[in-house]
């Protein structure tokens, strides 16, 4: 990994790329930036209809239960799948100019992260409208959970973006892989219904802990389980270190491979 100091020197580049991405995302559409809010609202509407009328279950306020897990998951899966092609997408830049290559996945993940933060405005609106109270103390844990998820997503994006340069299939494999991963994470169901023999696998999945923490704070209005938080944090740091190590090894030949 390039020295952190160098990355810090290039912070303006990260900022510029994030801004360019966010501004360019809905460019040309009539509603423009409003889509950032309309999209999650429409998703919420679909889930509410499906799970109230077609597939009713006994979880109270299921739409909220699902929603507070789904938005963080979308951030994570977008970082992994979209992040994997981020280096390839910027090949013109990489072939012709020097900058710490980590800047590209970092900007991509950060832009997804900012998008999630904007979606949280919708989440809070829904929480207030639904009448579920907000626990201010528990809310203090929210930034910590977000940072942990960010670290995890960044680690994965560094890993996948570097490998995709050499092995372009990964992009497509990841599409199905993240779908499977979503069903292996208790987002649509409660962890309590997971069969006992599969539980160790679920506990190894860092996203299980992250989603549980989000849900504790936003749905349950309680302080998340410390063990969950610590283990997800540990796994997040592990993936970040692994991701940057592999990225650092592979990035030397980016310009030739692209």
């Amino acid at each position, binding site marked *: 990994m390039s020295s952190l100091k*160098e990355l810090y*020197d*290039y*912070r*303006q*580049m990260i*900022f*510029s*790329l994030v801004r*360019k991405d966010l*501004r*360019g995302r809905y*460019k040309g559409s009539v509603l423009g930036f409003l889509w950032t809010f309309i999209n999650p609202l429409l998703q919420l509407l679909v889930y509410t209809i499906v799970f109230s009328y077609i597939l009713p279950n006994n979880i109270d306020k299921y739409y909220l239960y699902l929603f507070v897990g789904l938005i963080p998951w979308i951030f994570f899966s977008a970082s992994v799948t979209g992040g994997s092609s981020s280096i390839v997408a910027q090949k*013109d*830049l*990489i*072939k*012709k*100019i*020097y*900058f710490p290559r980590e800047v590209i996945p970092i900007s991509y993940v950060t832009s997804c992260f900012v998008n999630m933060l904007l979606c949280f405005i919708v989440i809070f609106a829904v929480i207030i409208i639904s009448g579920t109270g907000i626990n201010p103390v528990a809310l203090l844990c929210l930034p910590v959970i977000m940072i942990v998820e960010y670290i995890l997503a960044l680690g994965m994006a560094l890993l996948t973006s570097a490998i995709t340069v050499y*092995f*372009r*299939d990964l992009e497509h494999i990841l599409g199905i892989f993240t779908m499977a991963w979503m069903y292996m994470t208790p987002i649509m169901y409660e962890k309590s219904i997971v069969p006992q023999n599969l539980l160790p696998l679920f506990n190894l999945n860092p996203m299980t802990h992250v989603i549980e923490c989000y849900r504790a704070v936003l749905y349950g209005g309680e302080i998340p389980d410390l063990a969950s938080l610590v283990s997800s944090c540990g796994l997040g740091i592990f993936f970040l270190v692994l991701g940057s190590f592999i990225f650092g090894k592979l990035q*030397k*030949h980016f*310009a*030739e491979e692209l």
Partner: protein
Amino acid sequence: MSKDEIAIDVDNITKKFKIYLDKGNDLKERLLFRKRSRYEERLVLKGISFQVKKGEAIGLIGHNGCGKSTTLKLLTKIMYPDSGTIKMNGRVSSLIELGAGFHPDMSGRENIYTNASIFGLTKKEIDERLNDIISFSELEEFIDNPVRTYSSGMYMRLAFSVAINVDADILLIDEILGVGDANFQAKCFNKLKSIKASGTSIVIVSHSLGQIEQICERSIWIHEGVIKAEGSPKEIDLEYLEFMGQKLQENTQKELEKKSEIKDENQNKTEDVSENPELNQESNQESKKRWGNGKARITDIKAFDQNNKEQKVFKTGENIKIKVKYTVNQKVEDAVFGIGIFNLDGIQCYGTNTRIDKLNTFNIEKNGTVEIILDDVNLLSGEYLIDIAIESGDGIPVDYFREAYRINIISSSGDVGITRIKHNWII
């Protein structure tokens, strides 16, 4: 040389590229056609070492594919050498890719921020330079318009202004001093000189030897992955041009041989010619450059310097003797020999013939040679094409040979234009 005086230290670097014969990129292709991912390894750099002092400017020269651009890419860290080390002391800015990250829908001002940030500048640093950048680009009125409304010249001016205002310790330039109109180019040039004077080291890759001579103290000639020669630009550039001149001659020779082979074949298969349009075209092209009634034919052209040594490269102000051999098939009455010198833009720099020069009329009856001695050829740096012609007195071309010969002229001073006019300043 003490350590902190060295800005760039390149020590015995090598670089090889894998040239895939037919690369399968995805899994299916890799598994199915495993044999296809065979590749050749080509050693592009075979051990290059040099040092650049602080405030020194060097030029890398060499023919296409010799490894000079690869060297520059290694210096910018876009690629890494396979062996050897490169040490760069200080901030590096490169004028290799101008306008990196420009977004067409954003304004010029916003793009300055994006582009400069790619060079590693912080917001504060960009704020400080913003006025300099805008005024250097001469785009004050348009700076808040989206970049897509810019002309390509304006685009390049903006991009160049950002790159040159980074205030790097080391500036790497690849063949891009052709930005904008003549005024802007002169401005860029002066800016480069002042940047250099302020202690920035510069590495330039260029085919324009004139530019290198004006800025650089040293030229490094890279040939087939190794440094062939190194020294003051005037000497090295001359050596390089002579070498390239010889190469060119060899190549033209080969081409001529090929063409005559084709012609022979043509003659053997005269009946087939109508069915072979490609060959017809080929000979058409040839005839566009050469025409005449064929009573006499130019067979050989050579240029000599004042010491009677055959040359392709001359210095501005030298004497040039051109010797033309010809064969005569049929007597040419009132023959006229002519010469025309053109630069690569197609502008005739000089032309004359024996009639214009009022020589006594003569006939040519048998094979012979004709010489013309050009005194003090004051043409400036560049490549020149020479037309040679034989006409008969009634103005009918006997053998008009366009672009029959090429010479290179190198000027040791930086004056511009086509020809040097003798002058004095009185101040």
